[in-house]
């Protein structure tokens, strides 16, 4: 009896510092699952479509015309839809070297993209029309929002004719750099890369992730970051407190009317991430209900945005669409709270709202 008690005491002393890990119901292979089922296919799609976009831009410059412009625009739309899921794993390679901002400079509350891109177009700044020198310039000049202005902003129709030659070359340089960044991301997430092995094989000696719990923490953090970004930085600024304060031009990609494609694919990405992580398999019924509740909110947010019937520029002021967008905002907030207040605890993480949304 005494010996048993002593043994218990000895074991208690030997527990790792993260004693909480012992009670975790995190899928032990969560990193592997997320990398294989979510990150790899998302990056493959993004990489493929940026390459196609680069090609379409080249074709447009070589033989300008209405049809070529339409094809470039359609491929841009595909690129935005492929970016949605990629933008939701905002950690590791995507945040290193300001990659996220290079790909998608947002929020842009002072309209830096518009000002700088118009400057480049007005001055016909050749250093912006070559991929290598463009790389050294402001992040606002080189992401998807910049290319959106080139393809859809005022004066974009000149791309269909000879007058648009410079604009077209600048757009191609942006597309080439997008392709390059997509390749960098793919490389950083490749199975033999250090980040990938840290993420998929968490272990005591790793630089970043030392247990499946830490990997799960990163996934949960990515979800709450994504939810807050989609709601607070992409939708709500344009919604304003009331219809008088609404302004669709404060939302990303309104010129191409791809705003809801962007947010919609981000929400699909979050659902994909939750499913890839496979939290449910390791939880009891009550825990499973928490995961379902997150997915329920995400599905309803997505459904509401899919029903928006007017273009992004006006949707935020039209009563019915405004209601749909508000509803999506509430659902996204609900998912955010469920994740930080309940899911995190259910899978045994030490994180809660202090860790996920502290100050």
């Amino acid at each position, binding site marked *: 009896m005494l010996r048993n008690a002593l043994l218990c005491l000895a074991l208690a002393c030997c527990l790792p*510092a993260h004693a909480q890990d012992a009670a975790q119901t995190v899928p032990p292979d969560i990193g592997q699952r997320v990398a294989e089922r979510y990150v790899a296919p998302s990056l493959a799609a993004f990489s493929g479509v940026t390459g196609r976009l680069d090609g379409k831009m080249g074709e447009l410059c070589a033989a300008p015309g209405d049809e070529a412009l339409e094809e470039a625009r359609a491929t841009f739309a595909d690129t935005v839809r492929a970016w949605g899921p990629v933008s939701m794993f905002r950690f590791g390679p995507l945040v290193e070297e300001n990659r996220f901002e290079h790909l998608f400079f947002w*929020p842009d*509350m002072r309209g830096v993209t518009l000002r700088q891109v118009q400057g480049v177009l007005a001055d016909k700044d050749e250093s912006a029309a070559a991929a290598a020198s463009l790389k050294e310039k402001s992040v606002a000049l080189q992401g998807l929002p910049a290319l959106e202005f080139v393809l859809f902003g005022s004066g974009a129709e000149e791309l269909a004719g000879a007058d648009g030659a410079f604009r077209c070359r600048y757009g191609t340089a942006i597309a080439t750099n997008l392709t390059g960044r997509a390749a960098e991301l793919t490389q950083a997430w490749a199975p033999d890369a250090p980040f990938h092995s840290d993420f998929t094989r968490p272990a005591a000696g790793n630089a970043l992730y030392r247990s499946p719990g830490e990997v799960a923490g990163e996934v949960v953090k990515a979800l709450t970051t994504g939810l807050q970004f989609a709601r607070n930085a992409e939708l*709500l600024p344009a919604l304003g407190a009331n219809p008088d304060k609404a302004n669709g031009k404060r939302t990303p990609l309104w010129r191409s009317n791809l705003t809801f494609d962007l947010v919609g694919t981000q929400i699909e990405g979050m659902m994909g991430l939750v499913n890839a992580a496979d939290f449910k398999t390791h939880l009891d019924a009550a825990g499973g209900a928490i995961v379902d509740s997150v997915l329920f909110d995400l599905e309803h947010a997505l459904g509401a945005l899919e029903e928006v019937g007017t273009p992004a520029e006006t949707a935020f002021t039209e009563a019915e669409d405004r209601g749909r967008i508000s509803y999506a905002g509430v659902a996204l907030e609900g998912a955010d709270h469920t994740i930080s207040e309940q899911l995190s605890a259910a899978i045994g993480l030490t994180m809660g709202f202090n860790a996920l949304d502290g*100050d």
Partner: protein
Amino acid sequence: MLAGGAALAPTWADAAEEALFLGARLNRGRFEAAVIDEMGRDRLVLPLEARGHSFAIDPPRRRAVAFARSPGRFAVAFDVDGRDEPVAITAAADRHFHGHGVFTPDGRLMLATENDFEAGRGVVGIYDATDRFCRIGEFPSDGIGPHEAVPLRDGRTICVANGGILTHPDYGRAKLNLATMAPSLAYIDAASGEVVEKAALAPELSRLSIRHMALDAAGHVWFGCQYEGAATDRPPLVGRHRRGREVELFPGPREVLHAMQNYVGSVAVDASGTVLATSSPRGGLIAFWDTESGRCLGRQTLADGCGVAPSARGRVLATSGRGAVVNAGPETERVLTEAGGGAPAWDNHLRRM
């Protein structure tokens, strides 16, 4: 009968000696500010319209101001014994609160860290604490994103941690300037608004946001940081600044630094002024440091633990987002309220009266 009545209603002198703590929390879907005793029992609960953050406290006059978390625009002044009606304070039209503030020792003014968001600069709002907290002016915090402020012992100077992160309420809490951050500590004469001293980190640590502070026995400023750079970097997160000298940083043991995950949520110095506690909700731990040497003395685990406030010598009262209230020191931790079971979820800060 009389004796029993007296025991239930302590005199104000007794009440003043009792240790009381203030924290913001989420209780069954409602946000509130709570005053608790040293055992974690509620003494006063005040509803808040949204998530609260920290408090300005005026111990001689037994009152406090609860602030909204950034980018909130409300604050509430209240009597900690619940004797007066609370007074609502609203931020100026083009300002929002950053969640922290202080009273001047004479109780005349209350100073709050705020964001002049259109100009993208930090200010300290000045409120008349003798006249229903009317906002009577402001001075620059000499930096972006002023977060916690602490009054120094000279009774004149406040030290403001300019976290360096630019935000705009239209975009929620999105960080808008990570590439150009320049965090600092600004020592400001509260009477004139003059910056009398400023301390900054080395340029390679520009992404180390200085956010929370506490004073040690010698009156030196200890601070805790949140790192906005690469996750693979492991910069020190705990530092000390002694007036007139360079900032000193203390990494602590490698495994403690790793566990803190580049994030300190709150700091407090114990009753003796010799032990600093730093909480990291991301790592679920509280680390303790010797304020003489900067040596790490030990740590305790507390899932989503963030609030820390001075308790006895070498100890702090700490709260968690899971509802736990514990009394912790470098070697031992005593649970006063268990986590879970519907207990109120404590937000970032716990402050002692």
